[in-house]
């Protein structure tokens, strides 16, 4: 199968700090080859005798053709797995599976797109911006975080985007507030045709609300806790409305992570909506 994922044990080429984040570049030809913006990889953490069983998921930030193909991941330290990753050094090896997930769909015709990213969510947007610009699209960025050091990619956004608007909750960079506070203005100013967003569920909900108000399409990349990343464990489900109007609990790792925003029932994330297919209280379940 052309697009199917592979497992690769890649050598770490470089590690660097970017403000609050760590970036790892890993040799992974089979994954770099197949990459499209929005794809993610999962990595094994903790080494051979680790007590950590589940792979950790990371958006592919960038791919390069060097060494047959490299991928770059950008991450913040959250728990034991990311702490282990942050300790990796050049020449260590990393076990990756990818590329995984449904990538961002691209517009057929040139148009204006606002790309919204919160914290490490921004990492997914630059390859996307590149692909959009190659199709002649105009790209505007909105990047946010709680504080200046956690805004990822502001410089690159400024280089690539027609406009770049930054927000921080503490006001240490850009506007004080959240991305959703400034988004209506950005959409209006740019006369945007579409929105892409990547970040926490709560932010995606807000972005979707704004896009729906403007009646423009919105593609969101969700971040739901994942045990396998390849579609076999059913732990990463979100309630999504299908083409037939029926809500199903669908896997973020395979049907997503990118969904049409208005199809995701954000208010019901973390529940089984009563009208979802197979919800309890139905005839048999």
């Amino acid at each position: 199968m052309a697009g199917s994922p592979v497992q690769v044990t890649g050598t770490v080429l470089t590690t660097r700090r970017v403000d609050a984040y760590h970036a790892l570049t890993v040799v992974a030809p089979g994954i770099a080859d197949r990459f499209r913006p929005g794809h993610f990889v999962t990595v094994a953490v903790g080494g051979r005798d680790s007590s950590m069983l589940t792979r950790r998921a990371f958006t592919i930030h960038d791919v390069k053709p060097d060494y047959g193909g490299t991928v770059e991941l950008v991450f913040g330290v959250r728990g034991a797995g990311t702490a282990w990753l942050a300790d990796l050094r050049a020449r260590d090896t990393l076990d990756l599976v990818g590329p995984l997930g449904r990538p961002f769909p691209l517009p057929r015709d040139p148009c204006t797109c606002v790309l919204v990213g919160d914290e490490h969510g921004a990492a997914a947007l630059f390859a996307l911006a590149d692909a959009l610009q190659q199709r002649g699209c105009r790209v505007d960025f909105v990047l946010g975080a709680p504080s200046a050091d956690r805004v990822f990619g502001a410089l690159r956004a400024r280089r690539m985007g027609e406009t770049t608007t930054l927000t921080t909750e503490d006001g240490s960079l850009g506007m004080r507030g959240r991305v959703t506070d400034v988004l209506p203005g950005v959409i209006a100013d740019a006369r945007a045709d579409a929105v892409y967003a990547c970040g926490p569920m709560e932010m995606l909900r807000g972005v979707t609300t704004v896009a729906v108000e403007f009646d423009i399409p919105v593609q969101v990349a969700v971040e739901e806790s994942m045990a396998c990343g390849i579609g076999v464990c059913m732990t990463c489900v979100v309630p999504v409305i299908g083409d037939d109007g029926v809500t199903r609990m669908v896997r973020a790792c395979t049907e997503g992570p990118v969904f049409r925003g208005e199809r995701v029932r954000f208010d019901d994330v973390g529940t089984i909506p009563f009208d979802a297919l197979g919800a309890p209280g139905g005839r048999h379940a």
Partner: protein
Amino acid sequence: MTADLRTYLAHVELPNPVLTASGCGGTGRELAQFSDVHRLGAFVTRSITMAPRAGRPTPRMAETPSGLLNAVGLQGPGVEAFLERELPWLAERGARTVVSIGGGTVTEYTALARRLAGVDGITAVEINLSCPNVEDRGRVFARDGAAAAEVVASVRAATPYEVPVIAKLSPDVADVVAVARACVDGGADALAMINTPVGMSIDVDTMRPSLAAGTGGLSGPAVRPLAVRCVWQVHAALPGVPIIGMGGVTTGRDALELVLAGACAVAVGTALFHDPYACPRVLRELEELLQERGFDRLADAVGLAHRPAGAQPRTRTDLEESSL
């Protein structure tokens, strides 16, 4: 010379002893991206229910030391959609398919067995007995020998004689041998063990259970000692009954551990989440280990750790229920 890896679930021959564990191999299609499903000893489906089920709310999983808690809640499309969209695909690929079934009442299990009866491409039926019995205040069938036996007997009766019925047991009972015996007396042709014992984790930051469902099933290497113990005890008590061993198998060594304890087949679950190639890898490793130890046939290794101890003082075995 490589060892003969064929194994039998009752009279049904499998070309090799490495299976997927129920609920851990998706529909088969997902794993097929990585390796052929027909190279599995058998593909075991997630537990199929009569009606579609949306499962439990998220978060559905939490990592624990060398373990994984899950509360998926048997999400699935229901038996009709399964028969329409999933089983034919597996059959086309030449996979041997063990259909796992789950229900809330004896009637529901029986209805599932009836629905499956006569359908082509079903190698065996596995009864997931770790479902809450809605007629007994939600007590799971597997914790009650009599209730388990009743399910087994009625599924056995509804299933064509040439299709083996496998009863899948839980470790969190006071006496797994008693439940196993009840299931075999009820007509089970084979046993599978272990399903996940009930566990829980609490997020000390939110100060709430990590899983939306509160409790979940514990799987992975953390539970392997429980799995080995259950297989050992049941094989000792019922040496003639084929056992599919599972619980924390990640390598060929783990698989061999269960085989030596008495399993004639081994299923891989949680390890698939970490390594999508786990089944063929475990098989290859198991084959090498058997070869290194001079086995001509897998069958010769089954239960071998039970053999009376030789003269070496360090390997004397003196088994009691309790370790203390």
